[in-house]
């Protein structure tokens, strides 16, 4: 044993990360499910086109010079009076519906993603603190969460939006509309993260690997970030994906109700609201196509979230 202790031993080489990922179960379970692959394709097209909007969209709906009021409320290409210039028709201001959808998705996604990221950070942090510290801190955080949960998300968003609108001067309201939206959607979503993370933290913190870290002398802060966090993040990823769909929908609802993004900066919800006014006059495409687009986006993101939940839960395999 003694000479063994002194013998120099070469450390082995590490496996490349990519190889390890490609060998993984996650990819395998993905390829096995055609619904998931389909959802991924749809999500990729919708999200990809939104990100690459300036290059993909046939027109720039924000460029007032290129918008011609003469072309207002043209029908889609396959109807009488439609043209290839405006595949899905034009809206009441003569903007290309397809282009406004692509640009609108961009805003919807931006609000949704930022809101979910904010909710995730807030929720995970509060959940970890509650679960780790216990006592009065835990009680307070979880009571606030309970209260929050008993209000529907839309109501909370309307409340925050209303407060922001009354407190802020009129001229900045349009500019900051998007931030107000992000904060309200985030605040109505953090509870899911906090509850789940607190639950997992309560389970994990009593496990012996946490105690082992304490015996080693690891700082509490590093135990929480290094040991606890990675072990409570599994469900968080799933919640984040499903919450992205909810957040986009909440944003759309708020914009539809007129408390979200203004028509000069339209998200999918705004587009549906604007189009709604023209439904009666027969110009159904202005509202319908953004609606379909939104539904496809929500559905595909939800399906991906479901797959992720099943794939990450070993018990369901």
């Amino acid at each position: 044993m003694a000479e063994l202790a002194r013998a120099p031993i070469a450390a082995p080489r590490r496996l490349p990360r990519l190889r390890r990922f490609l060998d993984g179960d996650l990819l395998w379970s993905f390829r096995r499910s055609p619904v998931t692959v389909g959802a991924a394709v749809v999500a990729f097209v919708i999200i990809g086109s939104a990100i690459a909007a300036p290059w993909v969209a046939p027109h720039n709906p924000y460029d007032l010079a290129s918008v011609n009021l003469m072309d207002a409320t043209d029908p889609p290409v396959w109807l009488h009076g439609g043209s290839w210039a405006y595949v899905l028709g034009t809206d009441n201001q003569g903007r290309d519906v397809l282009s406004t959808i692509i640009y609108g998705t961009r805003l919807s996604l931006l609000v949704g993603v930022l809101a979910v990221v904010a909710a995730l950070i807030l929720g995970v942090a509060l959940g970890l603190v509650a679960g780790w510290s216990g006592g009065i801190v835990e009680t307070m955080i979880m009571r606030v969460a309970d209260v929050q949960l008993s209000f529907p998300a839309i109501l909370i968003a309307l409340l925050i939006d209303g407060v922001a609108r009354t407190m802020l001067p009129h001229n900045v309201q349009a500019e900051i509309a998007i931030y107000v939206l992000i904060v309200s959607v985030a605040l109505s979503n953090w509870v899911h993260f906090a509850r789940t993370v607190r639950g997992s933290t309560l389970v994990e913190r009593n496990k012996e690997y946490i105690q082992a870290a304490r015996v080693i002398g690891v700082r509490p802060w590093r135990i929480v970030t290094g040991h606890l966090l990675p072990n409570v993040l599994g469900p968080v990823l799933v919640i984040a994906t499903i919450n992205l769909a909810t957040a986009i929908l909440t944003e759309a609802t708020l914009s539809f109700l007129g408390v979200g993004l203004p028509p000069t900066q339209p998200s999918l919800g705004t587009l549906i609201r604007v189009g709604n006014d023209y439904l009666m006059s027969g110009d159904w495409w202005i509202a319908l196509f953004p609606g379909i687009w939104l539904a496809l986006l929500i559905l595909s993101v939800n399906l991906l979230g479901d797959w992720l939940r099943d794939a990450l839960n070993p018990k369901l395999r």
Partner: protein
Amino acid sequence: MAEPQALVEIRDLKRYFDVSPPPLERLLQRKPRAWVKALDGVSFTIRRGETFALVGESGCGKSTVARCLVGLYRPSAGKILFDGIDLAGLNRRKTAVPLRRRMQMIFQDPYASLNPRWRVRRIVAEPLVTHGLVGSRAERDARVAELLVQVRLSPEDGDKFPHEFSGGQRQRISIARALAARPEFLVCDEPTSALDVSVQAQILNLMKDLQSAFRLTCLFISHNLAVVYQVSDRVGVMYLGRLVEIAAAEQLFARPLHPYTRLLIDTIPRLDPVDGAAAEREPVAGEVPNPIDPPPGCAFHPRCPFADARCRAERPELIEADGALVACHAVAEGRLAPAALTTSSHPGATGRAGPSGKLAL
């Protein structure tokens, strides 16, 4: 009491757990507060280089002693001296951590004691990183590889996750992690009781080898007397949060003094190849009393064949008898002479060859 060669000294250690009902329930239903006296005055010393074993039935407070020692629990009362330094006085991180590095712990459950999301390399390197024991990353990898080889795993195992290993292999990883801090004192809380009988011997042998190679002092906790007999130099027998007997291992197995120790040794599972499960069976007949409401006097009296009126009223303290420390009125009064045992029906008392020859692992 203070022996110069003592590395660890525990004096009158107490640890109570508050298990009272919630305040509202206490108020409405007039329920009293309740405490589990997991440790109710435990004193012993561990000498440098020796393996001190704690035995006793499940729930008697063995793990609580271990957890108080390594700082996972704060003692309710009493003193723990490590190398002459009072651990309770170490409130500041800067002074506590260097001392804590010198004592490490191996846990019972090899499936829960390793972070499932970390690679073995990172797990084993954690003490190195925490205490700044290595400089470069290459140096760290080399040290981890060395540790893995010392516990008879391969350096390539560092790339794997804990779930890729068996229970025995995981316990080796735990041992490697504990050794990484270069401790002087190792607390092993039932390190083999979650393992298959066939694997237990391998792990015990590994630990014995490593202990002599690194001159470790060990506190070895087990409910399995056969395992204790294999590894320990001295043994403390616990019953309901108190030590009832402390003796050198050889003496304890050859001439147990306390009636509870005798009972434990009598019921050691014999080596019996047909009945492999014997090692798992309840070692002692009778109920273990509730530590929330322990019996008055000697806590063992409801199960003790030698109990009398004094035993039911007065709690015995540890006193020296026949070279051991025993807490028993009958032994102190001479009612129960150690010599009487050799002629009695206690098979555990038939001399050294008896238990060693017959013990099953």
